[in-house]
């Protein structure tokens, strides 16, 4: 056990810190759930890629920096410290990217990864369907191979970033009459293909964050199949582990929120406002929980670097960070008192409106990337060994 950073890691941190200090926009960008904000975020991603920072742990040939996951954690710490913009292409870079790295052909890697790293192509997730949410194996959308093309029919929904994204990845039923996890194939589909209709859905914040996507004899080249035909479920599960277990929510994000929450507590206290004594303990607990999440992630990364894999324990992470995120924002709103309900645009909000936005966003955490109730079943059955039936 060695909990100090190497001189190489410290130098890397310093380099990342100075680049970010010089380049992070001084004014916050518009939400990437608006068209204007989406374009701003894509511009930022281009700049990030120009500096060589977009995908720290990816190989250089695919637009990355060729560093290991520890460097990535350091970069994330600096990224949040600098208050840099959210990653508009997170579905691509954190979820699909690692899957292409594992299952893609050389051609697919060359074709998709560099443009993903630069966010020239932004990706939407196509997992859920109207009747396949927590029960994802109930996917009904079909893809039929005709010559060198898949002909796709059906509907995907809750496609995150779907409103403005360029591509969608998802699972489609390629074997007629197949059931459940069998007969599904992982396919990459351009959202401007003929027969594809995207209908944005306003989310709880009022902004079109996700979309329904309709496929009406949409044609996609067969070369856009990722991994073996009929084995889409296994391919998709590889991303699920990364999503829940590591990359989607790096610890610095929560350490940073916890730090701001402690600052908000101190400011509120300094102003002599009434604070429930329970809030003091809960704020400190959130800080401690964000540390636990960080420590746990460093354990995971240490294990991965010595050849380990992410397994069912990713479900522990998913529950822990999603509940922590909500708790921190609830406490902040409680500390803000009457100002807690102000939108960022309200003159009296004075920069605290982000807590309300963050709260609305955090409420989605226990739902996306696999509902927490499903994660609890996974923990019970696959980690604790309780009987399925």
């Amino acid at each position, binding site marked *: *056990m*060695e*909990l*100090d*950073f*190497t*001189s190489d*890691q*410290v130098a890397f*941190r*310093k380099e990342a*810190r100075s680049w970010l200090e010089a380049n992070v926009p001084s004014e916050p960008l518009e939400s990437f759930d608006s068209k204007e904000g989406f374009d701003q975020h894509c511009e930022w991603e281009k700049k990030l890629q120009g500096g060589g920072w977009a995908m720290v742990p990816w190989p250089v040939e695919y637009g990355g920096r060729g560093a290991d996951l520890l460097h990535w*954690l*350091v970069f994330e*710490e600096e990224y949040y*410290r600098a208050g840099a913009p959210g990653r508009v292409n997170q579905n691509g870079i954190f979820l699909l990217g690692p899957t292409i790295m594992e299952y893609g052909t050389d051609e697919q890697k060359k074709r998709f990864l560099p443009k993903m790293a630069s966010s020239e192509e932004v990706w939407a997730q196509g997992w859920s369907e109207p009747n396949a949410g927590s029960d994802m194996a109930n996917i009904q959308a079909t893809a039929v191979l005709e010559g060198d093309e898949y002909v796709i029919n059906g509907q995907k929904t809750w496609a995150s970033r779907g409103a403005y994204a360029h591509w969608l990845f998802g699972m489609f039923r390629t074997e007629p009459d197949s059931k459940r996890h069998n007969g599904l194939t992982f396919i990459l589909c351009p959202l401007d293909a003929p027969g594809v209709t995207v209908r944005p859905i306003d989310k709880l914040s009022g902004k079109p964050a996700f979309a329904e996507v309709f496929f009406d004899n949409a044609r996609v080249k067969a070369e856009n199949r990722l991994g073996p035909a009929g084995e889409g479920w296994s391919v998709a599960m590889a991303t699920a582990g990364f999503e829940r277990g590591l990359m989607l929510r790096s*610890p*610095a994000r929560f*350490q940073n929120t916890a730090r701001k929450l*402690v600052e908000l*507590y*101190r400011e509120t206290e300094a102003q002599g406002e009434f604070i429930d004594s329970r809030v*003091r*303990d809960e*704020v*400190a*607990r959130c*800080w*401690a*929980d964000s*540390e*636990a*999440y*960080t*420590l*746990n992630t*460093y*354990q995971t*990364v*240490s294990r991965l*670097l*010595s050849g380990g894999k992410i397994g069912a*324990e990713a479900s*522990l992470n998913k*529950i*822990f960070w999603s509940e922590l995120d909500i708790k921190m924002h609830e406490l902040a709103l409680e500390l803000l008192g009457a100002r807690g309900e102000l939108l960022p645009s309200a003159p009296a909000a004075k920069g605290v409106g982000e807590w309300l936005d963050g709260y609305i966003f955090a409420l989605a955490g226990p739902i996306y990337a696999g509902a927490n*109730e499903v*994660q*609890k*079943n996974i*923990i*019970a*059955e696959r*980690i*604790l*060994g*309780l*009987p*399925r*039936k």
Partner: protein
Amino acid sequence: MDFSFSEDQMLLQQTVRDFLEGECTVEHVRSMWDTDTARSPEFWGKLAEIGIPGLLVSEDHGGLGMSEVDMVLVLEETGRAGTAEPVIHTACVAAQLLQESGNDAVAKEWLPKIAEGSAIVAVQHDQSPFVSDAHVADLLILNSGDAVHAVPRADVQLTEQANNDPAKRLSSVEWTPRAGTLLADGDAARALQAAAFDRGVFAAAAQLLGVCQQLSEMTVLYATQRKQFGVPIGSFQAVKHMLAEEKVQTEYGRSHVYRAAHSVANAAPSRAVDVSMAKRAMAENAVSLAKTALQVHGALGYTWEQDLHVWMRRAWSLDTAWGNTAFHRARVSAAVIDGAFPAIPFGYEVPAA
């Protein structure tokens, strides 16, 4: 940066686990309850044979010269086995305190005895008016204000205090400080007291981690075997989710415990808050798991005969040991909110060199 254990450390853990599965059976733990002292010199001797009391004692003094990072997995196993012997007091806290005391004569006299298993040392701390295992101690480490004394048992008056865990024996200690027993005073004593307390807190947290592991495993086993409505009760989501929620807390508490081991071993500036975060997390989890385990076991778990309460009582008695949860919660808040002592975010704010 490598937050993992070495193969040797994991091998040591396995060795201790195998040993305790053979020697520290639940029958052994229960048989000790009904004895006068609840302690067996024979069993302590066996612990010494595999090196546990001398793990932190330097090789010069006949020990293994290991650190708390080696010790943490051992402590976890003793918690899992329900071992109530004074591993925390003697092997962890006293061994290091005597080494750090700067008093060579006392160290030379007592450390070899600790390592070979021929001496029990009990340690007092400010969060309790009672001393655990004083009744079998050959030497007591006692505080008198800012001074730390090492006092032979013959020189103290003990009054035993019956408590909720028949495996734990508490005493009130009456004694008079004398120049001949002084180990350290002033700043040196304060540093010794602080280090000893934090080490005890860490060790209790590590044992609690093992207690949680055991409570979870035995409850999963029961829920798998016990059938109602024609199916194992562990197949019901209500039961699954209760145990899954506890598991989440156990695993994140584990991260705190392992980090605390490193902070104690390296006298990190954040040591106090690191050990308090670990103790609070594990004590809350253990007390909660005790309730969950009892609920899943139902009426059977509410009997003296069923073994569940052996670990429920370990959870409760370790919860109050080395500062209760209210104390550690307040200490974490004082560090994080008031900056009363250093709370340093892991990684995040390491200054660029």
